[in-house]
């Protein structure tokens, strides 16, 4: 297994390009199943889950072409199987996103149930309840969701809890349903809006995406299009936090500043000077140490749970005492133990981490446990004296395109050691 070796101490300076958002690209790739003609998806990040999704679609008989800019053209007209096997679903929970499109367009889907998840319970029952309300017959046999339907019917759906993939799956299914579907208590995340934009460009009639009530008027068919995925707001935030922790000055390019107001606001509280244009954000710490801040996670547009671990790292070297409260996922402080091994002063109390900042951490061998936890350990390594080795970085590779190259470009001393 590959490792990252970091020698901390260098302030980050320079410019870095932000990749497309994986969490937008995956549902959009699933949505291509709904179209009668080829759909070309652009600004797709170069990540393993994207490759897995291509394999999933390819195994169904869907034709895929990747061009020199790594844009992916998907032609679902050649589909011959309606099946997502366990061996792929277990490696990527987002595979469940093919359920709605397959059922809506082809009337059948056999999709493996996802397995457990390291960062808490993420049930799929809301996806199934919604599709059942739209007229699908669904059973769960031998670990597989077996769904069958004629044309789905529009329905009033109320989500018991806010779920991004649940909202996306039902929204996709509703595009080809007969009549109107209303999803109440829908997820408001930018990735849901991006999917709705793409679907509307394909001919769907969706309104309200970005609010908690989404209305979809079903159409007979969707057509092909060319669509560029929105920038990754979490990658954007991670590089900004890295700059803040190291007292540096970094401009992130090809991003969308309005996607992360809650994050830039907190970075401002920490003492960062932040400016932005249409597609860039610049953070300047003037060489100063950040101030501690208090953060509580919540669904968008509040502070994202996917930035919690990075802000834990920031507080660990900030001036003062700060509290990070996690309200979205259970069991999401696994990075804390590793940071404590690097000298961080963190006290866990229920779903909160109380952090007393110290000027510098100490380099140590640490182990990544999930995607964002791994990113936070890399950030901690950037401000640690001596060498930090981050093991099991396959987690980080799932969400960050070329992280060591991008950080090195900003002046970090970081290298990958193949394992």
């Amino acid at each position: 297994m590959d490792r990252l070796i970091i020698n901390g101490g260098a302030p980050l300076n320079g410019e870095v390009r932000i990749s497309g958002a994986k969490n937008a690209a995956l549902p959009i790739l699933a949505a291509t199943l709904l179209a009668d003609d080829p759909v070309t998806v652009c600004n797709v990040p170069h990540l393993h889950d994207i490759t897995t999704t291509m394999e999933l679609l390819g195994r169904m008989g869907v034709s895929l072409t990747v061009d020199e800019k790594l844009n992916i053209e998907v032609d679902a007209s050649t589909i011959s199987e309606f099946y997502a096997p366990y061996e792929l679903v277990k490696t990527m929970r987002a595979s469940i996103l093919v359920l709605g499109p397959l059922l809506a367009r082809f009337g059948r889907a056999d999709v493996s149930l996802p397995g457990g998840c390291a960062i808490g319970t993420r049930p799929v029952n809301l996806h199934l309840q919604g599709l059942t309300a739209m007229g699908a017959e669904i059973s769960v046999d031998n670990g597989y969701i077996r769904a069958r339907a004629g044309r789905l019917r529009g329905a009033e759906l109320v989500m018991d809890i806010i779920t991004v993939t649940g909202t996306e799956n039902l929204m996709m299914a509703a595009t080809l349903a007969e009549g109107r579907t209303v999803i109440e208590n829908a997820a408001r995340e930018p990735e849901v809006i991006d999917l709705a934009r793409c679907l509307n460009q394909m001919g769907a009639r969706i309104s309200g995406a970005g609010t908690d009530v989404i209305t979809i008027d079903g159409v007979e068919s969707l057509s092909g299009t060319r669509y560029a995925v929105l920038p990754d707001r979490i990658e954007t935030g991670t590089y900004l936090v890295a700059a803040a922790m190291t007292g540096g000055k970094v401009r992130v390019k090809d991003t969308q500043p309005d996607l992360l107001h809650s994050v830039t606001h907190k970075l401002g509280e920490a003492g960062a000077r932040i400016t932005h244009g249409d597609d860039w954000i610049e953070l300047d710490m003037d060489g100063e140490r950040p101030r501690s801040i208090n953060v509580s996670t919540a669904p968008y547009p509040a502070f994202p749970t996917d930035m919690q671990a990075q802000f834990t790292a920031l507080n660990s070297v900030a001036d003062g005492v700060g509290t990070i409260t996690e309200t979205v996922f259970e069991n999401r402080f696994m990075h804390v133990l590793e940071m404590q091994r690097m000298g961080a002063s963190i006290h866990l109390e229920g779903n909160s981490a109380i952090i007393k900042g110290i000027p510098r951490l100490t380099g140590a061998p640490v182990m990544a446990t999930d995607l964002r936890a791994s990113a936070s350990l890399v950030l901690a390594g950037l401000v640690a004296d001596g060498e930090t080795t981050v093991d099991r970085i396959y987690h980080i590779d799932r969400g960050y395109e070329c992280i060591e190259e991008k950080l090195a470009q900003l002046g970090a001393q970081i290298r990958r050691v193949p394992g």
Partner: protein
Amino acid sequence: MPMPGDGELHVDDDGRIRLAGRLDLSTVAGLADRGTELFVQRQEAIVDLADVSRTDSAALALLLEWQRAAGRSGCRLRFENVPETLRSIADVCGIEAVIELPAS
């Protein structure tokens, strides 16, 4: 040596197979079937992609098909001067483990 056009194939006197021009979905179909004749009764063959100007994942499908055809004929196939873009596409497609594409 004359510069071939889109998706053209030329075999040098020393047996080196040169691909040139645009190698994508629109041009590879005609080349795929040439594999059998190219590799029969040869122990080794080199496919040189130095003159490929434009490419997409269909080119990878061609190289994989040729690799299979060469294997069936008992011919060891090597690719040379592979464009970086084609290597990136192979990476995204997750097939770098099944086909060796050395850098140009």
